[in-house]
């Protein structure tokens, strides 16, 4: 099977068994995969546990775009990034864990910036209710505890 592939292509297998064929330059944007390739401990098929096909496809899309557009205007890439990361909460969480776990720095930066924009200027109450799904009881108790813990914080 490996012989049928071009030399610089890699196969990534998601946690639910789907396989993606990607150029090596794209795959090694993930530091974790890069290390595996460099140490030559990877056969052509690299398992990517904890990341399902859906998310893996998104990550690959992002890496491909960044690889292609290295020469392109930075502003185009910015627009792409901001559109790319503009997703629902759950996808965002999955993407962040994937980017963190696979160590894809550009993606992690873009995602974290997006999260920062989302929570900027919002109160802790608001964030708990909107993003964390806290109930009233939890807010009361946790607020009480954290306020004691964080008494010495300046604000």
């Amino acid at each position, binding site marked *: 099977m490996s012989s049928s592939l071009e030399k610089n292509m890699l196969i990534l297998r998601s946690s639910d068994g789907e396989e993606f064929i990607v150029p090596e330059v794209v795959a090694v944007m993930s530091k974790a995969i890069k290390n595996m390739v460099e140490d030559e401990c990877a056969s052509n098929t690299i398992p990517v546990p904890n990341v399902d096909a859906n998310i893996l496809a998104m990550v690959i899309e992002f890496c491909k775009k960044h690889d292609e557009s290295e020469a392109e205007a930075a502003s185009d890439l910015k627009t792409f990034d901001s559109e790319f990361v503009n997703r629902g*909460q*759950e996808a*965002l*969480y*999955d993407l*962040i*864990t994937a980017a*963190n776990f696979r160590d894809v720095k550009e993606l*992690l*930066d873009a*995602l*974290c*910036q997006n*999260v*920062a*924009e989302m*929570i*900027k*200027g919002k*109160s*802790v109450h608001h*964030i*708990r209710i909107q*993003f*964390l*799904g*806290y*109930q009233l009881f*939890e807010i009361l*108790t*946790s*607020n009480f*505890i*954290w*306020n*004691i*813990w*964080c008494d010495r*914080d*300046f*604000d």
Partner: protein
Amino acid sequence: MGASLSSLTESNGSSNGGGPGFGDIPESCVVCVFLYLTPPEICNLARLNRAFRGAASSDSVWESKLPSNYHDILNLMPPERHQNLTKKDIFALLSRPFPFDDGNKALWLDRVTGRVCMSISAKGMAITGIEDRRYWNWVPTEESRFHVVAYLQQIWWFEVDGVIKFPFPADIYTLSFRIHLGKFSKRLGRRVCSFEHTHGWDIKPVRFEFSTSDGQQASTQCCLDATQQDNANGNHKRSCWIEYKVGQFIVKESDPTTEVRFSMKQIDCTHSKGGLCVDCVSIIPSDLKDRRRIGVLK
């Protein structure tokens, strides 16, 4: 008890759907998120959950909020005040104004942007005739950061000079003088101003200047008191502190150390002038200054 309760709330604290959500982002990612937020926002978010609290104490977050040469600033303090502090505590320490040079100068970081602000008391400047009590007096007051201002009764040669040498981090700074026309005091809990000595400032303008060690300079002139035309719409130059903006200078790198010489002069000896308080000179990043513009004259 606290631990058991908070673990209860955190285990329930994931997103509505029951799957992992926003609240389960690992601490290392929260650190990355914090790089895009301001210190007050970070401190506020530390209450959110355990990962956020851990990230809000991490050195890498706070190192990015401190100016690049914060070691130079720490060197102004006695070492026992900043030894063994985390980066977060260092930020907290530096964001409160602290005096140096015998208490004649103060320095602090802006809480939101972490940029360096400085203020130099009249005590730290060379004032012509300051030792003669017929001309100048020191007046203790709560209205100054340094708790004392120089009050001029009357003089012919009005000159105030100063110099500051400090490795300012790269930025654009605005230098301004803080001046009050008339003498103020508290009477029965109310602030009252007296203008018995105030005269001469409407005749000729005062000249403000500064120059830096790398050759930048700026100067401006301004009548400190309202002239007769101004008086028609009420005198806005009395009974309040006014910051007279002298100009801006650019620092490209903190090394070499920037030296700034500044002065304020009215040396036309054909008339006397008096009745004025000099508090301090402030050097503040220009866009911070614009944000809180109060009575700044162009």
